[in-house]
């Protein structure tokens, strides 16, 4: 664990009196290794370490009786700050109903499952969400959302005869307005951030629905690529929050730090299982402990 490694670094320096900035550099090297091993992107690591270094060469660390703990505290504080403080488990509503939540992300990241999870979470909070899938590409994608809806008593709009994402979305908006749903959750097809045609489609869906939330659904097991994809989605469709999935595994989850850092978006929710009730508000301090190991 990083705490042990930092202890090791500072143990060898004990009895020399106050720390020097060079001693702090040695600690930073340990932190760098820990973050890289946790799959944080190497550029994000560089930027993050710089923020830590600036604070770590301050008097309260250099003069501390337990410098390893002082440095660790700085690392933890900076990381929690990067995660947006961790109280973001809210979906922005709208006075103009329905408030639209657009689910976006790479193939297989957990969008469809998370759409159903968020709907259930909204229902628990006393809301009346409508769900719709605009994924006309993946075999049985719309069936998947429909089945999740049936299994969990969620309202899913399923205009069988429509085959265009834009038309499906418009149909769902009409349905939501006429029935009075206060939220419309829109599942979209997985797509590569470098697929210009599909990214343009996503931009079009955003323009047509004016969402209050554009959520980027990211797989916690993602490696260095997390930066590229999160950044591109954020640039093209203006993501407002991140849902981190598959946290019930043992991936260290450095992708979380990469995605949050490069987009400036808060991680709002954590997927912690395949069942629709396995969604939690994202807990920043827990994530920090997991990444640091």
């Amino acid at each position, binding site marked *: 664990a990083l705490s042990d490694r930092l202890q090791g670094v500072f143990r060898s320096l004990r009895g020399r009196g106050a720390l020097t900035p060079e001693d702090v550099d040695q600690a930073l090297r340990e932190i760098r*290794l820990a973050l890289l091993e946790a799959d944080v*992107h190497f550029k994000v690591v560089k930027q993050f370490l710089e923020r830590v270094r600036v604070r770590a060469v301050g008097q309260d660390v250099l003069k501390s009786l337990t410098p390893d703990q002082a440095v660790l505290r700085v690392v933890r504080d900076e990381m929690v700050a990067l995660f947006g403080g961790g109280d973001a488990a809210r979906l922005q509503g709208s006075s103009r109903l329905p408030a639209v939540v657009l689910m976006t992300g790479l193939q297989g990241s957990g969008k469809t499952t998370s759409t159903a999870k968020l709907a259930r979470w909204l229902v628990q909070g006393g809301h009346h969400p409508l769900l719709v899938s605009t994924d006309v590409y993946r075999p*049985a994608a719309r069936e*998947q959302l429909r089945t999740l809806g049936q299994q969990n008593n969620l309202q899913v709009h399923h205009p069988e005869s429509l085959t265009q994402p834009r038309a499906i979305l418009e149909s769902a908006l009409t349905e939501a307005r006429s029935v009075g749903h206060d939220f419309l959750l829109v599942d979209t097809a997985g797509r590569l951030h*470098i697929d210009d045609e599909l990214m343009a489609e996503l931009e079009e869906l955003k323009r047509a629905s004016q969402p209050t939330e554009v959520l980027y659904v990211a*797989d916690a097991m993602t*490696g260095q690529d997390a930066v590229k994809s999160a950044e591109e989605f954020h640039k093209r469709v203006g993501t407002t929050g991140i849902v981190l999935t598959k946290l019930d595994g043992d991936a260290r989850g450095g992708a979380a730090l990469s995605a949050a850092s490069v987009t400036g978006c808060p991680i709002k929710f954590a997927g912690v299982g395949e069942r629709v009730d396995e969604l939690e508000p994202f807990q920043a301090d827990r994530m920090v402990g997991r990444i640091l190991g």
Partner: protein
Amino acid sequence: LRGRRPLEPADLDAIEEALLAADMGVPAVAEAMEVLRARSREVWTEGRDAMRGLLRQELLRQLEQPAPAARTAARPWVVFLVGVNGVGKTTTIGKLARAERAAGRTALLVAADTFRAAAAEQLQVWAERTGAAFHRGAEGADPSAVLTDGLRAARSRGHDTVLVDTAGRLHTKGNLMAELAKMSRVAAREVPDAPHETLLVLDATLGGNALAQAREFAKAGGVTGLVLTKLDGTAKGGVAVAVVRELGVPIRHVGLGEAAEDLVPFDASSFVDALVG
């Protein structure tokens, strides 16, 4: 020796960052850099290009070791696709079904993912698209029971190949890994030496966790080969190098998209070129 110069720290840093960015992982990158430093003393190098050449050689050496076992005349030839959630197992089966048809063989697709919503429906579409036969059970049925019925159907109908779709499962879930081990035993009871292939599907976007996945799946049901999917994205899949070394099995196929034709045999040199840059 005109134009040749020893390696500079900036060159080494640039190469190290490229390898890290490709998800090769801290230990493998450190090891590759060590090899580079050691070998760069024995040859005059011409800066980064020559360094990349050395690296390419080293990585190719690591990847080309295990040669894939040849397919026998066993009938039906049974292939399991396994891996964690969302990596591309079902889609890869669709692509393999198309390849079987192109090779003049008949295939039966078995929907042994009885858990996830619309999993069987998804596989059925692939069967229709590729002209393969299809077998499923009821939603929530025991996957081993669906597998048994599917294998019996394949034997009685004389299918050449059986492609078995399994549910995505995190390697940390003991009960799900035990279920996979049971499916392997059940297959062996129905068809001698089945499953003849167990392909572990790895998503190119995976980070270091792929290694833990590989270890657990190898322990649970045995893994005979790897499929690396989504290499049409920007992720390089560098973690596959560590997996190949650890498991001693080859990367068999590479997924380059979402359509039935988007599967190619693994080509080590183009893979390594993309890693090293």
